[in-house]
C-alpha cells in the first residue's frame, strides 16, 4: 500500500517480469507513488493512451511490443506527448540510449538501477519535492 501521506503521483511500470514489476512497485510506493503495472508493451501502450500517469517506467525487451515501439506510438498520440518516460534496459551501448531518446524517452537507465537512483529520478521527473 502507499504511504499515508502519498502525493498521489502515478507511475506505470511496464515490464514482462512479475518480480521486476513488484520490485519497482515496492521502491516507488515507499516514496509515496501510486503504482500501476503492465505486463507487455502492448498492454502498456493501451493503458498509457487512456489513463493519466505522471511517469512511465518502460522495459525495452518485452513480448507483443517492445519498449521503443511503445514510446514511439505513445508520442505519436496527442495525449502521450508530455508524460515523462524512463526506459530501463540490460543494454549499455550508446546506440541503445540513442534509440530510446530518439523514440521519445526522457531518460535511459541500465539495469540494475539502484533503488535510490530510481526514487531520485522519479521524484525529479514528476515534480515531487525530494
Amino acid at each position, binding site marked *: 500500500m502507499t504511504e499515508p501521506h502519498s502525493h498521489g503521483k502515478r507511475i506505470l511500470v511496464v515490464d514482462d517480469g512479475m518480480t521486476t514489476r513488484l520490485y519497482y512497485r*515496492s521502491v516507488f510506493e515507499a516514496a509515496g507513488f501510486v503504482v500501476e503495472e503492465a505486463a507487455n508493451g*502492448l498492454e502498456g501502450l493501451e493503458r498509457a493512451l*487512456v489513463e493519466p500517469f505522471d511517469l512511465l517506467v518502460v522495459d525495452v525487451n518485452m513480448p507483443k511490443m517492445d519498449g521503443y515501439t511503445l514510446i514511439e*506510438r505513445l508520442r505519436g498520440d496527442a495525449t502521450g506527448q508530455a508524460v515523462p518516460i524512463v526506459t530501463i534496459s540490460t543494454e549499455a551501448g550508446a546506440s541503445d540510449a540513442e534509440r530510446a531518446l530518439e523514440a521519445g524517452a526522457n531518460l535511459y537507465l541500465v539495469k540494475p538501477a539502484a533503488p535510490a537512483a530510481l526514487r531520485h529520478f522519479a521524484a525529479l521527473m514528476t515534480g515531487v519535492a525530494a
Partner: protein
Amino acid sequence: MSVTAPLIDPLLPVARAEDARAPISPQDYAKFCDFFYRKTGIIFGANKAYFAERRLQDRIAATGHAGFRDYFTLLRFEIGGAEMQQLVNAMTIKETYFYREDYQFDALVRHVLPAIAAERAPGTPIRIWSLPCSTGEEPYSIAMQILEHWSQADRYDIEILASDIDSRALADARAGVYGERALHRLPPALKQRYFTPYGDGYRICDALRGSIDFTQVNVADAATMRRYRDIDVIFCRNMLIYFDEVSRRQAVETLYDSLRPGGVICLGHSESMSRMSSLFAPRRFGTTILYQRPVDHD
C-alpha cells in the same frame, strides 16, 4: 544495499472469516492472481478479491481437487485449456442487453465513423460486423446509435452484418422481441422511437429488423469466414476471452483477414489484444481503445 520499504507482497489480502471449504492461503491467492493476470490481463482489485476467491474455491471443488496446489497444476498443465476456460467463465459476467458497454458505441459514432467518412466518398459502403451477435441486442444497438447520433449516416450505405454460431439466438434476433431487462439501459426516447409493446415485452421496429443481415457463422470455419471481407468495424465483444489459446490465435488471424487495412476491431471491456496477438495496433478513439489493422502492409 537493500530496499528500504518493508518487503510486503502487495497481493496478500487481509484474512477474513472462515469458509466451509478449504481457504486459499494468501500466497496461493497471490500465485493465482499473477497467473490469471498473465493469461488474461485481468486484475482483481481489493473489492473483487472475495468474489474471485469464492469462484476459485468453486472451481477447485467442481474439479474434485483437495486444494489449490493440485488445481493449479491442472490449470497450468492441461492440454487444450478446458479448465482455464471454465475458470474464465466463472470469473466474468456474461449477459446481454441493449447498450451494454455503450461507451464503445459512443466511440463509434463520435470518432471511428467520422474518421472513416473523412477518407470515403459519399454513397460508398461502410461495413460493420457484430460477431457474436447473440440475440441481437448489440447490432440493433449499433444501428440505433448510428441513426440517432451520426449526422453523416444518410450520406453512406451502412451495412450492418450480425453473426452468431447459435441458430436459435439468430432466430430470436430476427424476431426482435425483448423483455424489460434487455431494455433497462436504453434511453426512454429510443425505446419510444424504435420499439412497440409486444406481449409482455417489446418488439423492435420493422425498419431496423429489416436492415440487419443476420447470418450463422462459426469463427473456426475458414470457408465461411472467407466470405466476409473489407469490413470497416468489427464488434467482437466477450467472445475471444472464452476461447482456448490456440483457437483464439486462429480466430484473431481470421478476423484480421476479414478487416480492410485500417479497419478496427472492438473487444469487450475486460479483453485485451495484449494477451492475444500483436497483429493489431491499439488506437485511441476519444477515451476508448480499439484495435486497428495496420494500413501499410509491413
